[in-house]
C-alpha cells in the first residue's frame, strides 16, 4: 500500500480540488483529509459517517476554588501566561503541561483531559474516507492528523486498497509534518505567483528534510507563463518531476459551487483531461495499481 500526500505550502492553490479529483479517478483508494482545522474535502465527496471518535489531544489545568489559597505561585511558574491576575486558567493559553499543578502547595490544581475534536470514518461513493474536525481554536492538530492517517491506513488494509490519498494543510509546521512523515510521495500543488514560488521552495526543503519524494503540479499555469517557466526550470535543475500543468478555468470554481469534483462535474473539459493525465503519471511513478 502506498501513501501520497497532496500539499502546497501556500494556501488556496488547489489541493482539495486535486485530492477530490484523484479520489474520483482512483479505483481502489482511501482518502484522508488531514487539513483538520479547515477541512473542505467533505463538501465535494459528501461522506456518510459510519463511526465518530472523540479526540483527546491535550490536557487543561483546573483550579479547585475551595482549596486554592491564592498564593499565586502557579501564575509565577507558568511559562505560557495561562493564569490570569485573579488566578483563573485561560484555556486558550494553557498547554496542559502540569507545572501549576506540581508547584501548588495546596494541591488545588488538577489536569483534566480535554476533547479537542472529532475524528470520523465515512463512506463516500468513491470509497472510504477518514477525516476529522478540530474544535475551533484548539491546539495539537498534528496529533489529530496522525489519528486520521492511522484511520486511513486501517481502512486501506481492511479494504485491500493500494493507495491512501492524503489531503494536507497549508504551511510547513506541525500538522504538515504529521501529514508527510513516512509517506511514499508528496505532490505539491503550486501556482505561478511570487508567493507560490517562495512557498514551493520551502515545502520542497521540508520534503527533503523528511526524505519524501516530491512531485510538482503547477495549477493555473497560464496566469503567468514567465513564472511557470521559472518553476519548470527550477524543478528541472533539481531533478524534481513536474507531473502536471493545469490551466486556469472558471469551471473549477463552478464545480466547487456545485459541490462536485471537477473531473466529474466537467468530464469533457481540458482541466479534467490535464488532471487525469497527472493522475496517471503519478500512479505510474508510484508503481501502484490504483
Amino acid at each position, binding site marked *: 500500500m502506498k501513501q501520497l500526500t497532496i500539499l502546497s505550502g501556500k*494556501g488556496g492553490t488547489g489541493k482539495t480540488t486535486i485530492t477530490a479529483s484523484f479520489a474520483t479517478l482512483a479505483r481502489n483508494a482511501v482518502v484522508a483529509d488531514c487539513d483538520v482545522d479547515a477541512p473542505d474535502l467533505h*463538501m465535494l465527496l459528501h461522506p456518510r459517517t459510519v463511526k465518530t471518535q472523540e479526540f483527546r489531544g491535550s490536557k487543561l489545568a483546573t483550579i479547585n476554588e475551595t482549596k486554592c489559597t491564592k498564593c499565586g505561585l502557579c501564575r509565577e511558574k507558568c*511559562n505560557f501566561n495561562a493564569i490570569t491576575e485573579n488566578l483563573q486558567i485561560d484555556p*486558550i493559553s494553557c498547554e496542559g503541561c502540569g*507545572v501549576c499543578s506540581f*508547584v501548588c502547595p495546596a494541591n488545588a490544581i488538577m489536569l483534566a483531559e480535554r476533547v479537542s475534536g472529532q475524528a470520523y470514518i465515512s463512506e463516500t461513493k468513491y470509497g472510504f474516507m477518514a477525516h476529522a474536525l478540530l474544535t475551533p*481554536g484548539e491546539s495539537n492538530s498534528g496529533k489529530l492528523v496522525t489519528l486520521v492517517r492511522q484511520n486511513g491506513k486501517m481502512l486501506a488494509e481492511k479494504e485491500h486498497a493500494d493507495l491512501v490519498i492524503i489531503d494536507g494543510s497549508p504551511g510547513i509546521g506541525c500538522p504538515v*509534518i504529521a501529514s508527510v512523515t513516512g509517506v511514499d510521495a508528496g505532490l505539491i500543488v503550486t501556482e505561478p505567483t511570487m*508567493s507560490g514560488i517562495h512557498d514551493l521552495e520551502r515545502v520542497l526543503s*521540508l520534503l527533503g528534510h523528511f526524505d519524501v519524494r516530491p512531485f510538482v503540479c503547477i495549477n493555473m499555469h497560464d496566469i503567468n507563463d514567465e513564472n511557470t517557466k521559472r518553476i519548470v526550470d527550477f524543478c528541472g535543475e533539481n531533478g524534481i518531476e513536474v507531473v502536471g500543468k493545469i490551466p486556469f478555468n472558471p469551471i473549477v470554481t463552478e464545480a466547487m459551487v456545485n459541490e462536485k469534483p471537477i473531473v466529474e462535474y466537467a468530464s469533457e473539459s481540458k482541466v479534467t483531461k490535464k488532471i487525469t493525465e497527472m493522475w496517471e503519471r503519478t500512479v505510474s511513478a508510484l508503481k501502484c495499481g490504483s
Partner: protein
Amino acid sequence: MIVSVASGKGGTGKTSVAVNMALSIGNVQLLDCDVEEPNAHLFLNPEISQTQAVTVSVPLVNEKLCDHCGKCADFCQYHALFVGSDRVLVFPDLCHSCGGCALVCPKEAISEDQHKIGTLKLGSTDDLELVYGELEVGEPMAVPVIREVKRHIGKDKNVILDSPPGTSCPVIQTVKDSDFCILVTEPTPFGLHDLKIMIQVLESMRIPFGVVINRAGVGDNRVYEYCKEKGIPVLLEIPYERKIAELYSRGIPFSQKMPEWKAKFQALFKTIGKRVNK
C-alpha cells in the same frame, strides 16, 4: 490600534489585504505572523536592518548529576524526554518549554539549553516598518516564533498583523489581543465553510470582526446571504479582475498600480477605527 487579518481558508487574499492596507495608511507597522510561509516581504522588498535567531528553552541534562530516576520523563506531557538505564535522550522538537522537567528533578540535574527554531527579521520601506519571522524548515512549532514577532509591536503605531491560514494555535496566537480582525474570504463554499469556523474562534475570544470579500463575482451568493443573516459587516469587496491577479502573481501590491484602491483601503481602515472606538 492593532488590526489582524485572518481567513480560515488559505489563499483568500490575507496578505494582499494586509499589504495594500499597510501601504495606504501612514505610521504603520506590518507584522507578518505567517511564519511557516511568510510572503508580505515579497511584495515590499524591504531593507532588512536586523536579523536575529528565535530560540526556545529545552532541557540540558547533566549526566554527572542524573541518577536516571525517570521523574522528568514521567512528568513531561509532550514525551520530549526519554530516560534510559544509563542516559537521557532529549527531543527538542517535542518540547514545549514549560520548564517542568527541571522543577521535578530531585538531583537538580536539568538546566536550560537554547534551541533555534526560527529567524526574526526587522526591516522597512519608505513609510512602513515590517517585522516577520521564518520558522526553520522541519521545526513543528510556529507559536514561539509568532510570539517573538509580536513582541516587537510598536506603541502608538497603526499595527497590522498578517495571520497564517487555518483556525488552530498559530492563528489564535496571531489574533490574540488585536482590537479588530478582518476576515478575508471568497464567495465559494470552501470560503464560507472556513469563514464560519473562524467566526466561532473570534466570538469565543471576544474579538470584533468584519468581512472582506475577495474575488467578488466568482462563485455564488451564500457568503453574502450568511453575512446579512448574521448581521456581519461586509467592509470591502475586491472584484475578481485579471489585472489584480496578474499584479499579484508578479509580487506587486495592486494599489500601487491602481491608485483608486488606495482611498478604498484608507476608508477600510477608517471604518475599522470607528468600530473599535465605538
